[in-house]
């Protein structure tokens, strides 16, 4: 018993300051950044590299021409999404509304919006 304790104490003391069974010396360089990223963070950065800054479409959109036949497409994975319409350039308040799945909806100022499918970035 005593010899076992001495032996394991010796083994532990040989491991050095940072105990790690796998790496003994600190490598010079970090591993390649893209290889260690996961999850949403990785998806966002991949989109950034591909030239798409707003991967999750949360930034303000520039509203183009629209009509009942060609409404502005708002993407979501859910049944509804809150949107805010800045009705005129001089508006000081944002007109918030729930956009429901289905037919195009109109803001009080007359613009058309429709909820369309988005691919889920996480989960199923």
């Amino acid at each position, binding site marked *: 018993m005593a010899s076992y304790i001495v032996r394991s104490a010796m083994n532990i003391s040989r491991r050095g300051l940072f105990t790690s069974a796998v790496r003994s010396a600190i490598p010079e360089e970090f591993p390649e950044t893209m290889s260690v990223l996961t999850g949403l963070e990785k998806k966002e*950065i991949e989109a*950034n590299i591909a030239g798409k800054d707003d991967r999750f479409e949360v930034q303000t959109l520039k509203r183009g021409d629209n009509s009942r036949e060609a409404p502005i497409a708002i993407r979501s994975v859910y049944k509804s999404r809150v949107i805010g319409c800045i009705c005129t350039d001089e508006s000081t308040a944002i007109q918030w509304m729930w956009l429901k799945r289905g037919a195009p909806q109109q803001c009080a100022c007359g613009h058309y919006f429709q909820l369309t499918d988005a691919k889920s970035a996480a989960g199923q």
Partner: protein
Amino acid sequence: MASFPRIFFRKISSTPALKAIDAGGAYHQEADKARDLWKKITLFVAFPAIAIASANCYVMEISHHHERPEFVPYEHMRIRTKKFFWGDGNHTFFHNKEVNPLPDGYED
């Protein structure tokens, strides 16, 4: 004025994801340069400065002779409205009997 918050928020997101990924690009070289500069500042400016200041402290400490002042029981000094909750309740936490008198004078 209205754009101030926007500028502020852009400034604090100081991790430019794209740039930091770009291994061989200009940003990497920039970071290499900055790293070398700060390494040199640490090793060749900061360390000598610390060494000189330490030596200065040491020399000044051994050169002048410490003479503790005569004990005068001023009313605004050595205040003990309540006992300390350590020791005998009469010694401050960093008490040094060579230089710090108790309310009724030096200990030795």
